């Protein structure tokens, strides 16, 4: 192979065709609240960990739906389960259980 000093750049485009429906349904089975997020961002705004490092439940939910589960886990890695997000969620999502469930479902091999 020839090295031209430049090469293909990975696409930043998300491909929804890669969405793992089965796994998502598994998640929705144990925490159905994942379906009802309306991406308002309240959780991220109050996040204790998010003040110091990139943490966002809203984004994690998005990432899962956008076929990027590894990014979702990344988004929740710093979470301290403090529960502030559950207090501010306007849809009453059980955020802590959702976080635990996402990590459980998507970090399992």
């Amino acid at each position, binding site marked *: *192979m020839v090295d031209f000093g*430049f*090469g*293909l*750049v990975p*696409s930043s485009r998300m491909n929804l065709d890669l969405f793992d429906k089965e796994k998502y349904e598994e998640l929705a089975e144990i925490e159905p609240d994942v379906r009802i997020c309306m991406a308002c961002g309240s959780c991220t705004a109050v996040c204790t960990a998010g003040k110091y490092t990139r943490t966002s439940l809203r984004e994690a939910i998005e990432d899962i739906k956008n076929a990027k589960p590894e990014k979702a886990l990344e988004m929740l890695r710093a979470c301290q389960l403090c529960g502030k997000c559950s207090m501010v969620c306007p849809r009453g999502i059980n955020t802590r259980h959702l976080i635990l469930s996402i990590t459980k479902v998507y970090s399992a091999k």
Partner: protein
Amino acid sequence: MIYEGKQKIWSEYQKEIPDDHYFYVRSCIRQSFFPASEATFLDITRNKLGKDIFETEHHTTCGGIAYHSDTIPQETVMTIIARQFALMAKNGYENYVCSCITSFGLYCETMETWREFPELEAKIRENLWKSCKLEFAKPKFLIHASDLIYKYRKLIAAQAVRKLVNVHTGEPLKVVEHIGCHYSKMFPSKGVGGAEYPYVLVGMIEAWGGEIVDYPERRHCCGFGFRQYFIKGNRGYSLSNTHKKFESMEPFKPDLIITNCPGCPYFLDRWQYVIAESTGKTYGQDGHGIPALTYEEVAGLVMGYDPWDLGLQTHQVGVEPLLDKMGVEYDPAKKYLGKNGKDIGAPAPCSCLK
């Protein structure tokens, strides 16, 4: 795909193309990329179809490349353009045809800008007079050279010696059409068929017997993008653009790509080589590439020009499989012989791309 639906759209994007008497302006880069294309254009229109196409050695670049690379101000570009137009008027023409898509887009943009901002036009008029002592004029009809070939497509078909058909199977060739972004994406009404389903090249392919390939990424840029290519650090983006297009057209197994822009055939051609040599992937049959030709070259092929006279040897992707399919006779030995019979030198062999 519903063909009638497309026809409806095409019918809404028809532009008036005068039949004759044009002031012709060449492209800067085409002359070095695929030099025979413009010569073929002039030969077909003047000699085969008997049209009046005037050109003058006094015209310059339109300034487009510098403009899109943010290296010269707009007023400068506009004055250069005004000079081109003035040359047209000075030579007694009012129909302006240019070979380059970048120029075409820039001319359209400039004309629109003058229309919206008359004070700017006045200033350019003054600039032109101050700098060149030329009388300001605007073309009555501004068209691209591919518009003209589109206009003459049936005349060309009438003189054609062959069609865009696989002579071995009798099947029409599958042709990808690719228009330059600046042809109609900026001003859909300025292009034949608009921007979504441009008809300018499709019309030629239909007239000459080929079959259109409508693949998902058909709208996508070839990857030129000016700054993306000019700066080596960004070249990966250019390459990735092209790669995306080829990945998208691959399932359709196209035989040929027709383009109407200076950059597109170049990038669709050369990047196939780079993709093949850096990743091992090829998109044509049996390790070949997909030839990416200019519309003049294709017109020349159907009209029976010798492929080496059309400059097809300047393409990185070998055109021989296409010539074989079309039943074009050629002398492989003459491929790298120039006009004067002197060897112009063969490129180094490729390891992946046949």
